[in-house]
């Protein structure tokens, strides 16, 4: 009797985690030792170093917060170390996630008698590469031998598609979890489930709804003279108590029109008070309204990006605990104009989908069984574990006796169908189309036939396929590429590309790299994001080629064959081959997001406010209403970032990460607006340059130069119309050079230039030398020695300061396209 497969799926959530198993027929949710299918993502380490996970640890959140950690999922992939003072240990977020996964693995073992070795773990769709890498590492630490990652909305979609049956058309998964918001647009067509697009916000979740309610409570307390400050570390305990109470009130408000927030003995600056507030549903909804609107704006953005208007959706699937909020459901239905998928448990849908996905990729969690004694020639079978196709192919290859077995026959276990005998190819391969039973697991027996038609038992003699859904390869959520020295991005994988994927491009070095120079490194920065400018994209890793690895100088323009590969779970591999020295480099460093100090964040916030104000002013003067509206809509995010920075000062690491993300996104928005505004400015510069050049060339240029100037101006205008910034700058530089060449033919030009340089001698890189040259220059001016003046001016130019900022912007990249 064949043991049923064990496909394990785990939803590693910010607030709660769940594990489900699929045995090719039905899905089972695993209960933990307390009998619940939900395990809080909380880890406690006591003084003896004992690790407690789940509800038991959660109880200590209030009484022993220093040694009890929750909501560390959003910190995965960062370099944060969380301290557990009782045991004197530091743990990274991925290590804590590993403890949660270990606990879930044990729950499976307790319930089913086998500890799974392979599983599918869910991650938010907008997790970046370093975050998915951290999730994989956590699973390996938890004892899994092999793990595949799946994006949460895809998992939800699989589970919803499995439950709802086949209906064609677009539908949306609205996944609001504890810490992240994902929205995915999907399409089912003839049983094929395809993810059309993703969007979301890694810093929007149920936690933010709690915080909104907390802020409401804090405001009420402040009105009563009790001031709780997020930025004050002394108030951390009070804030925690308030949050727990707010969470309970939030749950109550899903079914009642009002709920109490009651805390006995709240200690604020030595003042002990009892908090007893009543929060109405209306007040709560007013507080969380903007957050829900934010999520819906993301949904409509996704729909618009895919050409979908109102009422185009077939249905919406809600995922995540916070989606039970009545206001949220009401607003989603109103804005998206579609019914909800029924019979779906938003708390466990992701885990169910992950388990189903494990089935589609045949990731059986059972330990590999010992091979039974051979009862016939071995055959290697390839078939889909799950498919929407009722007549898929079963392909195989005879590994033994390929010359005696001539044909293959496959019979369905119910006896209602069998294939015609299919001849084997000379190499022993065969492909047979089988017929499945709809929406169930179908078993088959496979037999070989020798030249006389005699049946030969093969090993394995049977297999089974589940009729369900076919899932396209999971798509990449954000484009991945390499930053180039000119701050552009060579995109390797576009957003939406199916995973796994591998691409190779040939790039070229931008400077000569001399061997053995300590610290001199050829950098290949790998970035993720949709921006054309590298500095706006997130740096996710750097492949470094130290000059100490070179035996000879690597000239400019040397070819670097760079391969990037992403596996299905989003793990990155990079390899650079330098043909000139025939070496391969594959050490990718810096996969963690470095910690940014709060001072840096505060400084960045200040600079962004200034920039935004300048841009608003310019937009107002230019009467650019659209730009002004965009800016004014975005500026409130800066206030949110400011609040987060304050909370981070009070010890809330998550708030710090959120602030960093908001500021990064705002920087990108400003850069986009600046680029748009720069274009008309560039047009003005072209006219100015041309006007300057034409006046000098008319007087001191020759016919060839006049002709060249006109041609160049025409080419420049053409490039401007085509919005080719590089070409515009190039042509403009030629116009200026032509003008300057003519200018310097004027008898007094060198003298004027000398006076200009002399006035700026204080800015020189070598002031002493520059001063000496100025003195000599004055003498030359007195003697009217034009040649000497020219020579001195040229030397002064050499000493003037140089700008090296451009290369810094491209994350220090040493590469360009050909």
């Amino acid at each position, binding site marked *: 009797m064949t043991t049923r497969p064990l496909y394990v799926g785990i939803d590693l959530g910010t607030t709660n985690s769940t594990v489900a198993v699929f045995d090719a027929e039905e899905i089972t949710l695993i209960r933990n030792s307390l009998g619940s299918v939900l395990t809080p993502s909380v880890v406690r380490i006591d003084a003896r170093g004992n690790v407690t996970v789940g509800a038991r640890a959660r109880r200590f959140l209030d009484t022993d917060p220093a040694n009890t950690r929750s909501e560390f999922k959003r910190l995965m992939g960062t370099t944060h170390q969380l301290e557990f003072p009782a045991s004197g240990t530091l743990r990274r977020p991925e290590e804590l996630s590993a403890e949660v996964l270990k606990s879930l693995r044990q729950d499976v073992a307790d319930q089913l008698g086998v500890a799974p070795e392979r599983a599918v773990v869910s991650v938010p769709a907008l997790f970046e590469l370093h975050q998915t890498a951290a999730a994989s590492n956590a699973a390996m630490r938890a004892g899994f031998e092999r793990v595949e990652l799946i994006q949460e909305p895809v998992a939800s979609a699989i589970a919803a598609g499995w439950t709802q049956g086949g209906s064609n058309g677009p539908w949306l998964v609205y996944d609001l979890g504890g810490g992240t918001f994902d929205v995915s647009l999907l399409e089912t067509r003839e049983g094929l489930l395809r993810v059309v697009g993703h969007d979301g916000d890694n810093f929007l979740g149920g936690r933010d709804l709690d915080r909104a309610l907390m802020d409401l409570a804090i405001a009420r307390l402040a009105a009563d003279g009790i001031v709780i400050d997020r930025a004050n570390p002394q108030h951390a305990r009070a804030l925690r108590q308030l949050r727990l109470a707010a969470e309970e009130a939030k749950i109550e408000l899903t079914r009642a029109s009002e709920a109490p927030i009651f805390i006995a003995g709240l200690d604020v600056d030595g003042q002990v008070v009892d908090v007893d507030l009543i929060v109405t549903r209306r007040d709560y909804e007013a507080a969380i309204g903007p957050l829900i609107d934010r999520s819906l704006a993301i949904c409509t953005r996704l729909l618009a990006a895919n050409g*979908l208007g109102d009422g185009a959706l077939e249905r919406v699937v809600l995922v995540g605990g916070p989606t039970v909020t009545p206001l949220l459901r009401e607003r989603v239905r109103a804005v998206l104009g579609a019914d909800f998928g029924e019979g779906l448990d938003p708390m466990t849908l992701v885990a169910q989908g992950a388990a189903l996905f494990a089935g589609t990729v045949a990731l059986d969690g059972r330990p590999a069984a010992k091979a039974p004694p051979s009862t016939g020639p071995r055959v290697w079978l390839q078939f889909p574990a799950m498919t929407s196709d009722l007549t898929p192919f079963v392909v195989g290859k005879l590994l033994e006796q390929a010359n005696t077995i001539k044909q293959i026959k496959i019979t369905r276990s119910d006896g209602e169908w069998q294939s015609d005998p299919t001849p084997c190819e000379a190499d022993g391969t065969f492909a047979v189309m089988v017929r499945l039973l709809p929406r169930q697991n179908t078993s088959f027996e496979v037999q070989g036939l020798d030249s006389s038609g005699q049946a030969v038992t093969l090993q394995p003699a049977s297999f089974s396929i589940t009729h369900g859904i076919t899932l396209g390869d999971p798509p990449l959520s954000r484009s991945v590429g390499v930053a180039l020295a000119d701050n552009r991005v060579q995109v390797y994988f576009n957003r939406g590309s199916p995973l796994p994927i591998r691409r190779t491009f040939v790039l070229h070095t931008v400077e000569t790299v001399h061997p053995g120079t300590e610290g001199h490194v050829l950098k290949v920065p790998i970035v993720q994001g949709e921006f054309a400018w590298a500095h706006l994209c997130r740096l996710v890793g750097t492949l470094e080629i130290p000059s100490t690895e070179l035996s000879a100088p690597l000239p400019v*323009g040397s070819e670097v064959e760079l391969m990037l590969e992403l596996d299905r779970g989003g793990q990155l591999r990079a390899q650079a081959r330098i043909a000139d020295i025939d070496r391969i480099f594959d050490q990718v460093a810096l996969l963690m997001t470095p910690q940014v100090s709060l001072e840096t964040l505060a400084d960045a916030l200040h600079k962004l406010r200034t920039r935004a104000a300048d841009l608003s002013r310019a937009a107002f003067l230019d009467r650019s209403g659209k730009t002004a509206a965009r800016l004014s809509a975005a500026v409130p995010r800066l206030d949110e970032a400011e609040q987060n920075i304050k909370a981070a000062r009070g010890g809330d690491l998550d708030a710090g990460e959120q602030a960093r993300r908001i500021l990064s996104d705002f920087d990108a928005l400003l850069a986009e607006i600046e680029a748009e505004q720069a274009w008309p400015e560039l047009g003005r510069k072209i006219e100015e340059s041309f006007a300057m050049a034409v006046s000098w060339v008319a007087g001191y240029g020759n016919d060839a*130069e006049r002709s060249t100037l006109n041609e160049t101006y025409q080419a420049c205008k053409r490039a401007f119309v085509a919005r080719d910034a590089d070409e515009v700058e190039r042509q403009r530089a*030629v116009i200026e050079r032509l003008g300057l060449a003519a200018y310097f033919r004027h008898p007094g030009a060198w003298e004027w230039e000398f006076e200009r340089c002399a006035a700026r001698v204080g800015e020189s890189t070598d002031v002493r030398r520059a001063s000496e040259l100025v003195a000599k220059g004055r003498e030359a001016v007195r003697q009217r020695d034009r040649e000497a003046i020219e020579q001195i001016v040229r030397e002064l130019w050499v000493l003037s300061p140089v700008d090296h900022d451009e290369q810094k912007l491209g994350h220090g990249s040493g590469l360009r396209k050909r």
Partner: protein
Amino acid sequence: MGAIAGVVIVIVIVRMLSGSIKVPPIALAFGVKLGIYVFAITLVQVTTTDAEVATGVLHMVAFVLIWAPIPLLRWVVVPLRMPRTAYWTTRISWPLGLTKEIQASAVVYGALALARRSHPSEEAISWLERKLRNSEPIHGAGVVAAGLLAALRKDIDRARGLFATADRMHARLIPRSMRVIARDWLVVDAARVGNWQRVVRLGRHGMITLRWSYSMARIGERLTGNPKAWHKWQLWPCFLWAPRRRVTYPPFRRALRVPVRRSVQPDPAPSATDFPLALGSLARALERANAHDGELLAQSIQAVDRNLDSVQEMIEQRLDILGSRRDAGAVLAQFRQRLIDLVTPLIEDDPYLARGAQPGSIMEQAVWQVRRRLLGDIEARCKDYRDRTTGETSLDQIAEWETWAWLTNSANRLLELDSASESVLFQIVYAPVCNFAVYQHNGRKRIALAHDMFIWLLAYAQGVPEARQLLAKNIQAGIAGI
């Protein structure tokens, strides 16, 4: 006589070592060879028996080895496929035309011998590379040697660049025999892929006319249906005058069969409804055999582009059936971009394909794309020159020649693509290259490299009198050192 010759040689050597006389290398070589020849003849006469034949043979060997080593190398030593033998024979025989770069020239003949093997060994290539790295000076022969070694390493692009640089060098920088090798390689490189247009340009518009490449160019004109191609009665003498007649006979015979058309009749464009046929004609134009026919390519692309509008409705229907809400315009735009991407690498490889691209056409957009890339490449290299001039850092000679070859190649391709870019190109390259050349000349004593840079710049300095003046001055200063 021998004794007198020996005495003369000793006196010359002593005075050279004392610095009281300076002898040009070629004169020195001539003098030494004369001395050795007289000495050898004397030795033969003294030591041989009465057999006149043996004496005659020995005279002949000595004569050839001393006075005509190049034919010996070309017809005897190189075909032996022994690179070290070829190298040392060249060094010892010291051909008069190669005296300035005897070491690099020896590497050339070593590489030619190695090229005759079906599987040149890694060890032999490395040995020649070491010899080249240690050679001084490096002028045209060194560049040709570097090109041959790159070709042996299967780095065809690098080899092509180096040979193109050698082919356009000033006569003072490269012996004729070396230029012949470079030019012949380029002709074969083009002919083997059917790029007869390039063969014609190489043979007809090169720096100097060389017999075999000129003959191949005339053959190429016939093969490409050039209206100005020679008639048979003109082609025969040209063919007979050139070397390698036996191996060149097959393309020559093919060329004779092509009738000379004095006016070109373009093929009619496919009809408006024939989108698949238009694509088919494009595919044919792209196939290797026809990949260098620019006119055919442009026409095929235009035919596809013209027919695209006729399929818009079909695209809309298909999008609707497949459940997409995007409009057909987006798909058409992507299709056009793919057409551009298909054509771009061909144009980059052979810019002449794009000559006569119509404004607004797909070909013209591809030209713009390639042009932008080439200018970016040139700017990056100029920036590197600027940085290295400021930092006073230099690569080894061969690497510098290679870097220079890359830049000039990109520049030449840019000008082939768009001759109107000459002024922009000059403005970009003039200052960094000129300053770098000055650094190489003054700081590193690489006169030949600097000289080549000045000459190349001068060719494009038409409209800038100050630049012409400066470059002419620099060229004059450098000539004496070569």
